[in-house]
Protein backbone atom coordinates (compact mmCIF):
# COMPACT_ATOMS: atom_id res chain seq x y z
CA UNK A 1 0.00 0.00 0.00
CA UNK A 2 1.17 3.50 -0.73
CA UNK A 3 0.56 7.00 0.56
CA UNK A 4 -1.51 7.64 -2.57
CA UNK A 5 -3.90 4.87 -1.57
CA UNK A 6 -5.03 6.86 1.43
CA UNK A 7 -7.77 9.42 1.18
CA UNK A 8 -6.83 12.97 2.10
CA UNK A 9 -8.84 12.71 5.28
CA UNK A 10 -7.33 9.38 6.25
CA UNK A 11 -3.80 10.63 5.61
CA UNK A 12 -4.39 13.75 7.69
CA UNK A 13 -5.84 11.69 10.48
CA UNK A 14 -2.96 9.23 10.51
CA UNK A 15 -0.36 11.94 10.40
CA UNK A 16 -2.14 13.78 13.18
CA UNK A 17 -2.12 10.71 15.37
CA UNK A 18 1.40 9.56 14.54
CA UNK A 19 -0.03 6.42 12.95
CA UNK A 20 1.50 6.65 9.53
CA UNK A 21 4.60 4.55 9.00
CA UNK A 22 6.27 4.94 5.61
CA UNK A 23 9.42 3.60 4.02
CA UNK A 24 12.15 5.83 2.64
CA UNK A 25 15.09 3.94 1.19
CA UNK A 26 16.46 1.69 3.92
CA UNK A 27 14.58 3.52 6.70
CA UNK A 28 11.06 3.73 8.04
CA UNK A 29 9.64 6.84 9.64
CA UNK A 30 6.59 7.67 11.71
CA UNK A 31 6.04 11.43 11.68
CA UNK A 32 3.37 13.24 13.64
CA UNK A 33 1.93 16.51 12.51
CA UNK A 34 -1.36 18.35 12.43
CA UNK A 35 0.00 21.31 10.53
CA UNK A 36 -1.88 21.73 7.25
CA UNK A 37 1.08 22.82 5.13
CA UNK A 38 3.09 19.81 6.20
CA UNK A 39 0.23 17.41 5.60
CA UNK A 40 -0.49 18.91 2.18
CA UNK A 41 3.14 18.90 1.05
CA UNK A 42 3.65 15.39 2.36
CA UNK A 43 0.60 14.19 0.45
CA UNK A 44 1.93 15.75 -2.75
CA UNK A 45 5.61 14.92 -2.45
CA UNK A 46 5.49 11.48 -0.81
CA UNK A 47 2.54 10.18 -2.77
CA UNK A 48 4.45 7.26 -4.30
CA UNK A 49 6.12 6.11 -1.10
CA UNK A 50 5.26 2.74 0.37
CA UNK A 51 3.55 2.47 3.70
CA UNK A 52 5.12 0.06 6.15
CA UNK A 53 4.30 -2.12 9.10
CA UNK A 54 6.20 -2.74 12.29
CA UNK A 55 9.23 -0.87 13.55
CA UNK A 56 9.81 2.84 12.97
CA UNK A 57 13.44 3.86 12.72
CA UNK A 58 12.51 7.48 13.40
CA UNK A 59 9.61 9.15 15.16
CA UNK A 60 9.47 12.89 14.96
CA UNK A 61 6.95 15.64 15.31
CA UNK A 62 6.34 19.04 13.77
CA UNK A 63 3.98 20.98 15.98
CA UNK A 64 3.23 24.43 17.24
CA UNK A 65 4.74 25.23 20.63
CA UNK A 66 2.63 25.68 23.75
CA UNK A 67 1.95 29.24 24.70
CA UNK A 68 1.57 32.50 22.86
CA UNK A 69 3.65 31.61 19.84
CA UNK A 70 1.02 29.09 18.86
CA UNK A 71 -1.13 32.02 17.78
CA UNK A 72 0.90 35.21 17.58
CA UNK A 73 3.57 35.26 14.85
CA UNK A 74 3.08 31.52 14.93
CA UNK A 75 6.01 29.18 15.19
CA UNK A 76 6.66 25.49 14.82
CA UNK A 77 8.91 23.13 16.71
CA UNK A 78 10.64 19.94 15.64
CA UNK A 79 11.00 17.21 18.17
CA UNK A 80 12.61 13.81 17.86
CA UNK A 81 11.31 11.51 20.59
CA UNK A 82 11.12 14.53 22.86
CA UNK A 83 14.54 15.87 22.00
CA UNK A 84 14.52 19.33 20.40
CA UNK A 85 17.70 19.92 18.45
CA UNK A 86 16.53 23.08 16.69
CA UNK A 87 15.27 26.46 17.75
CA UNK A 88 11.75 27.38 16.74
CA UNK A 89 10.87 28.23 13.16
CA UNK A 90 8.16 30.51 11.75
CA UNK A 91 5.06 28.50 10.86
CA UNK A 92 5.51 29.19 7.15
CA UNK A 93 8.66 27.08 7.26
CA UNK A 94 6.97 24.03 8.73
CA UNK A 95 7.51 21.87 5.67
CA UNK A 96 11.23 22.68 5.20
CA UNK A 97 11.56 21.95 8.91
CA UNK A 98 10.03 18.53 8.29
CA UNK A 99 12.70 17.80 5.68
CA UNK A 100 15.61 19.27 7.67
CA UNK A 101 14.42 17.42 10.73
CA UNK A 102 14.20 14.12 8.88
CA UNK A 103 17.77 14.71 7.60
CA UNK A 104 18.85 15.34 11.18
CA UNK A 105 17.31 12.10 12.40
CA UNK A 106 19.20 10.09 9.81
CA UNK A 107 22.52 11.91 9.91
CA UNK A 108 22.78 12.12 13.69
CA UNK A 109 22.01 8.50 14.47
CA UNK A 110 23.01 6.24 11.57
CA UNK A 111 26.33 4.45 11.67
CA UNK A 112 25.24 1.49 9.71
CA UNK A 113 26.42 3.37 6.62
CA UNK A 114 29.17 5.90 6.08
CA UNK A 115 27.23 9.06 5.33
CA UNK A 116 28.79 11.69 3.10
CA UNK A 117 27.23 15.10 2.72
CA UNK A 118 26.77 14.81 -1.03
CA UNK A 119 24.19 14.34 -3.72
CA UNK A 120 24.18 11.04 -5.57
CA UNK A 121 22.62 10.12 -8.92
CA UNK A 122 23.03 6.97 -10.98
CA UNK A 123 23.38 6.16 -14.65
CA UNK A 124 24.33 2.86 -16.28
CA UNK A 125 24.95 1.18 -12.96
CA UNK A 126 27.45 3.74 -11.68
CA UNK A 127 26.84 6.48 -9.14
CA UNK A 128 27.91 10.08 -9.54
CA UNK A 129 28.69 11.54 -6.12
CA UNK A 130 28.53 15.32 -5.82
CA UNK A 131 29.93 16.48 -2.46
CA UNK A 132 28.01 19.41 -1.10
CA UNK A 133 30.32 22.35 -0.74
CA UNK A 134 28.47 25.59 -0.02
CA UNK A 135 27.69 27.57 -3.15
CA UNK A 136 28.27 24.53 -5.30
CA UNK A 137 24.76 24.46 -6.71
CA UNK A 138 24.70 20.72 -6.16
CA UNK A 139 20.96 20.53 -5.57
CA UNK A 140 20.19 22.45 -8.75
CA UNK A 141 22.58 20.23 -10.63
CA UNK A 142 20.96 17.16 -9.08
CA UNK A 143 17.46 18.23 -10.08
CA UNK A 144 18.68 18.91 -13.61
CA UNK A 145 20.45 15.55 -13.88
CA UNK A 146 17.36 13.77 -12.65
CA UNK A 147 15.25 15.44 -15.31
CA UNK A 148 17.66 14.17 -17.95
CA UNK A 149 17.58 10.50 -17.07
CA UNK A 150 19.82 10.08 -14.03
CA UNK A 151 18.28 8.13 -11.17
CA UNK A 152 18.05 10.03 -7.88
CA UNK A 153 19.76 8.42 -4.91
CA UNK A 154 19.74 11.53 -2.72
CA UNK A 155 20.24 15.25 -2.92
CA UNK A 156 21.86 15.50 0.54
CA UNK A 157 23.32 12.25 1.81
CA UNK A 158 25.36 9.65 -0.04
CA UNK A 159 25.09 6.44 1.96
CA UNK A 160 28.01 4.05 1.56
CA UNK A 161 27.29 0.45 2.53
CA UNK A 162 29.90 -1.46 4.49
CA UNK A 163 29.36 -4.55 2.36
CA UNK A 164 30.78 -4.00 -1.08
CA UNK A 165 30.97 -0.20 -0.68
CA UNK A 166 27.75 0.20 -2.64
CA UNK A 167 25.95 3.50 -2.60
CA UNK A 168 22.44 3.07 -1.20
CA UNK A 169 19.49 5.14 -2.43
CA UNK A 170 17.46 7.23 -0.04
CA UNK A 171 15.34 9.27 -2.43
CA UNK A 172 13.72 12.32 -0.86
CA UNK A 173 12.24 15.50 -2.32
CA UNK A 174 15.01 17.68 -3.73
CA UNK A 175 15.28 20.98 -1.89
CA UNK A 176 15.92 24.05 -4.02
CA UNK A 177 16.58 27.60 -2.95
CA UNK A 178 15.99 31.05 -4.31
CA UNK A 179 16.83 31.43 -8.02
CA UNK A 180 17.24 27.67 -8.45
CA UNK A 181 13.51 27.24 -8.07
CA UNK A 182 12.79 29.28 -11.20
CA UNK A 183 15.76 27.79 -13.02
CA UNK A 184 14.51 24.24 -12.57
CA UNK A 185 10.90 25.18 -13.25
CA UNK A 186 12.09 26.41 -16.61
CA UNK A 187 14.62 23.61 -17.22
CA UNK A 188 12.13 20.91 -16.36
CA UNK A 189 8.51 22.06 -16.78
CA UNK A 190 7.27 18.62 -15.78
CA UNK A 191 8.84 18.87 -12.32
CA UNK A 192 6.31 18.84 -9.50
CA UNK A 193 7.03 21.39 -6.79
CA UNK A 194 5.71 21.65 -3.27
CA UNK A 195 4.87 24.90 -1.55
CA UNK A 196 7.56 27.59 -1.44
CA UNK A 197 8.59 28.88 2.01
CA UNK A 198 10.08 32.31 2.19
CA UNK A 199 12.51 34.04 4.52
CA UNK A 200 14.18 30.93 5.77
CA UNK A 201 17.80 31.16 6.87
CA UNK A 202 18.64 30.04 3.34
CA UNK A 203 16.17 32.33 1.55
CA UNK A 204 13.20 30.85 -0.30
CA UNK A 205 12.94 27.08 -0.25
CA UNK A 206 10.85 24.65 -2.26
CA UNK A 207 10.95 20.91 -2.93
CA UNK A 208 10.78 18.85 -6.11
CA UNK A 209 8.94 15.56 -6.04
CA UNK A 210 10.93 12.42 -6.71
CA UNK A 211 10.03 10.56 -9.92
CA UNK A 212 7.82 7.56 -9.33
CA UNK A 213 10.34 5.24 -10.98
CA UNK A 214 13.10 6.43 -8.63
CA UNK A 215 10.93 5.77 -5.58
CA UNK A 216 10.17 2.29 -6.91
CA UNK A 217 13.83 1.50 -7.44
CA UNK A 218 14.99 2.71 -4.03
CA UNK A 219 16.04 -0.83 -3.19
CA UNK A 220 18.60 -1.02 -6.01
CA UNK A 221 22.09 -0.13 -4.90
CA UNK A 222 24.98 0.65 -7.25
CA UNK A 223 28.75 1.06 -7.23
CA UNK A 224 30.33 4.51 -6.98
CA UNK A 225 31.73 5.64 -10.32
CA UNK A 226 32.61 9.31 -10.16
CA UNK A 227 33.26 11.85 -7.44
CA UNK A 228 32.79 15.35 -8.75
CA UNK A 229 33.10 18.52 -6.68
CA UNK A 230 30.87 21.10 -8.40
CA UNK A 231 31.46 24.86 -8.37
CA UNK A 232 28.83 27.03 -9.94
CA UNK A 233 30.18 30.25 -11.45
CA UNK A 234 27.98 32.40 -13.65
CA UNK A 235 29.34 32.51 -17.17
CA UNK A 236 31.97 29.83 -16.63
CA UNK A 237 32.51 27.25 -19.35
CA UNK A 238 31.93 23.71 -18.16
CA UNK A 239 35.30 22.21 -17.24
CA UNK A 240 36.22 18.93 -15.57
CA UNK A 241 39.63 18.91 -13.88
CA UNK A 242 41.05 15.66 -12.52
CA UNK A 243 41.57 15.60 -8.80
CA UNK A 244 44.25 13.88 -6.73
CA UNK A 245 42.84 10.87 -4.92
CA UNK A 246 44.47 11.32 -1.49
CA UNK A 247 43.21 14.89 -1.22
CA UNK A 248 39.79 13.75 -2.42
CA UNK A 249 39.76 11.12 0.28
CA UNK A 250 40.48 13.74 2.93
CA UNK A 251 37.83 16.08 1.53
CA UNK A 252 35.23 13.34 1.58
CA UNK A 253 36.19 12.48 5.16
CA UNK A 254 35.72 16.05 6.28
CA UNK A 255 32.37 16.10 4.47
CA UNK A 256 31.16 13.02 6.23
CA UNK A 257 28.85 12.95 9.23
CA UNK A 258 30.25 9.84 10.81
CA UNK A 259 33.69 9.16 9.39
CA UNK A 260 35.38 9.46 12.77
CA UNK A 261 32.86 7.15 14.39
CA UNK A 262 33.50 4.44 11.82
CA UNK A 263 37.25 4.89 12.43
CA UNK A 264 39.42 2.34 10.66
CA UNK A 265 36.44 0.92 8.80
CA UNK A 266 35.49 4.39 7.58
CA UNK A 267 39.06 4.94 6.39
CA UNK A 268 39.09 1.67 4.45
CA UNK A 269 35.67 2.44 2.98
CA UNK A 270 36.62 5.90 1.76
CA UNK A 271 39.93 4.70 0.37
CA UNK A 272 38.10 1.96 -1.53
CA UNK A 273 35.50 4.38 -2.87
CA UNK A 274 38.11 6.88 -4.00
CA UNK A 275 40.18 4.14 -5.63
CA UNK A 276 37.21 2.96 -7.67
CA UNK A 277 36.14 6.41 -8.80
CA UNK A 278 37.27 8.99 -11.27
CA UNK A 279 37.64 12.16 -9.24
CA UNK A 280 37.18 15.66 -10.57
CA UNK A 281 36.59 19.30 -9.80
CA UNK A 282 33.85 20.73 -12.00
CA UNK A 283 33.34 24.35 -12.85
CA UNK A 284 30.16 25.28 -14.72
CA UNK A 285 27.89 28.21 -15.47
CA UNK A 286 25.21 26.62 -17.61
CA UNK A 287 23.05 23.63 -16.83
CA UNK A 288 22.76 22.29 -20.38
CA UNK A 289 26.53 22.29 -20.76
CA UNK A 290 26.92 20.63 -17.39
CA UNK A 291 24.44 17.88 -18.29
CA UNK A 292 26.29 17.26 -21.57
CA UNK A 293 29.60 16.85 -19.74
CA UNK A 294 28.09 14.26 -17.41
CA UNK A 295 26.49 12.48 -20.35
CA UNK A 296 29.89 12.05 -21.90
CA UNK A 297 31.35 10.86 -18.62
CA UNK A 298 28.63 8.27 -18.40
CA UNK A 299 29.12 7.10 -21.98
CA UNK A 300 32.83 6.70 -21.49
CA UNK A 301 32.03 4.19 -18.75
Amino acid at each position, binding site marked *: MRVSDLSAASLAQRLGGGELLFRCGPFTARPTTGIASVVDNFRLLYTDYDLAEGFADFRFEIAPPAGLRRWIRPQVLFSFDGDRPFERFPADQAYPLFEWGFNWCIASTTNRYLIIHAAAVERGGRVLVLPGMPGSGKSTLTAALVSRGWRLFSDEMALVAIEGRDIVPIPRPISLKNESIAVIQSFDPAAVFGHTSHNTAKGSVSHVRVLTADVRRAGEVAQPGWIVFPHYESGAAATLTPR*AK*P*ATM*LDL*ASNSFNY*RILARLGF*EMLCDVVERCDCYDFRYGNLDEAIAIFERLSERG
Partner: protein
Amino acid sequence: MGPICKLNRLSSLSWRQFGAEWAFFDEGSGDTHVVDAVAAATLMCIEAGTFDASALAEQVAVELDLEPSEALSQGVAASVERFTILGLIEPAAS
Protein backbone atom coordinates in the same frame (compact mmCIF):
# COMPACT_ATOMS: atom_id res chain seq x y z
CA MET B 1 72.73 9.92 19.89
CA GLY B 2 69.43 11.59 19.24
CA PRO B 3 66.26 11.26 21.31
CA ILE B 4 64.57 7.88 21.39
CA CYS B 5 60.98 7.86 20.21
CA LYS B 6 58.13 5.42 19.87
CA LEU B 7 54.55 5.34 18.69
CA ASN B 8 51.99 6.68 21.19
CA ARG B 9 50.70 3.65 23.09
CA LEU B 10 47.13 4.54 22.11
CA SER B 11 47.94 4.73 18.40
CA SER B 12 47.21 2.02 15.85
CA LEU B 13 47.80 2.84 12.18
CA SER B 14 46.11 1.75 8.95
CA TRP B 15 47.88 2.62 5.69
CA ARG B 16 46.85 3.03 2.05
CA GLN B 17 49.15 3.96 -0.78
CA PHE B 18 48.11 6.28 -3.58
CA GLY B 19 51.00 6.48 -5.99
CA ALA B 20 53.73 8.59 -4.39
CA GLU B 21 51.61 9.49 -1.38
CA TRP B 22 50.38 7.58 1.62
CA ALA B 23 47.15 8.06 3.53
CA PHE B 24 46.96 6.69 7.05
CA PHE B 25 44.41 6.55 9.82
CA ASP B 26 45.31 6.50 13.50
CA GLU B 27 42.76 4.80 15.72
CA GLY B 28 44.09 6.47 18.86
CA SER B 29 43.63 10.07 17.78
CA GLY B 30 40.93 9.38 15.19
CA ASP B 31 42.97 11.48 12.76
CA THR B 32 43.62 10.87 9.08
CA HIS B 33 46.70 12.21 7.30
CA VAL B 34 48.22 12.19 3.84
CA VAL B 35 52.01 12.21 3.74
CA ASP B 36 54.89 11.77 1.32
CA ALA B 37 57.06 8.67 1.11
CA VAL B 38 59.76 9.91 3.51
CA ALA B 39 57.25 10.77 6.25
CA ALA B 40 55.42 7.50 5.65
CA ALA B 41 58.59 5.44 5.84
CA THR B 42 59.64 7.33 8.97
CA LEU B 43 56.40 6.62 10.75
CA MET B 44 56.31 3.00 9.59
CA CYS B 45 59.78 2.46 11.02
CA ILE B 46 58.76 3.92 14.35
CA GLU B 47 55.62 1.82 14.24
CA ALA B 48 57.83 -1.24 13.89
CA GLY B 49 60.22 -0.37 16.70
CA THR B 50 61.95 2.23 18.80
CA PHE B 51 64.63 4.40 17.28
CA ASP B 52 66.96 7.21 17.96
CA ALA B 53 67.29 9.90 15.30
CA SER B 54 70.38 8.65 13.45
CA ALA B 55 69.35 5.00 13.39
CA LEU B 56 65.95 6.11 12.14
CA ALA B 57 67.37 8.03 9.19
CA GLU B 58 69.48 5.00 8.25
CA GLN B 59 66.50 2.67 8.45
CA VAL B 60 64.34 5.00 6.34
CA ALA B 61 67.03 5.10 3.69
CA VAL B 62 66.98 1.30 3.60
CA GLU B 63 63.19 1.21 3.34
CA LEU B 64 63.13 3.70 0.49
CA ASP B 65 66.12 2.15 -1.21
CA LEU B 66 67.94 5.48 -1.21
CA GLU B 67 71.44 6.58 -0.34
CA PRO B 68 71.60 8.24 3.06
CA SER B 69 71.88 11.99 2.64
CA GLU B 70 71.59 15.21 4.56
CA ALA B 71 68.31 16.00 2.77
CA LEU B 72 66.88 12.64 3.75
CA SER B 73 67.96 13.09 7.37
CA GLN B 74 66.34 16.49 7.45
CA GLY B 75 63.16 15.07 5.98
CA VAL B 76 63.12 12.37 8.62
CA ALA B 77 63.75 14.88 11.40
CA ALA B 78 61.01 17.17 10.14
CA SER B 79 58.59 14.24 10.02
CA VAL B 80 59.47 13.23 13.56
CA GLU B 81 58.86 16.76 14.75
CA ARG B 82 55.51 16.96 12.98
CA PHE B 83 54.35 13.61 14.31
CA THR B 84 55.45 14.58 17.81
CA ILE B 85 53.34 17.71 17.71
CA LEU B 86 50.41 15.60 16.55
CA GLY B 87 50.96 13.31 19.51
CA LEU B 88 51.54 10.23 17.35
CA ILE B 89 55.12 9.90 18.57
CA GLU B 90 56.28 10.13 22.15
CA PRO B 91 59.64 9.89 23.83
CA ALA B 92 60.14 6.25 24.77
CA ALA B 93 60.07 5.66 28.54
CA SER B 94 63.55 5.22 29.94
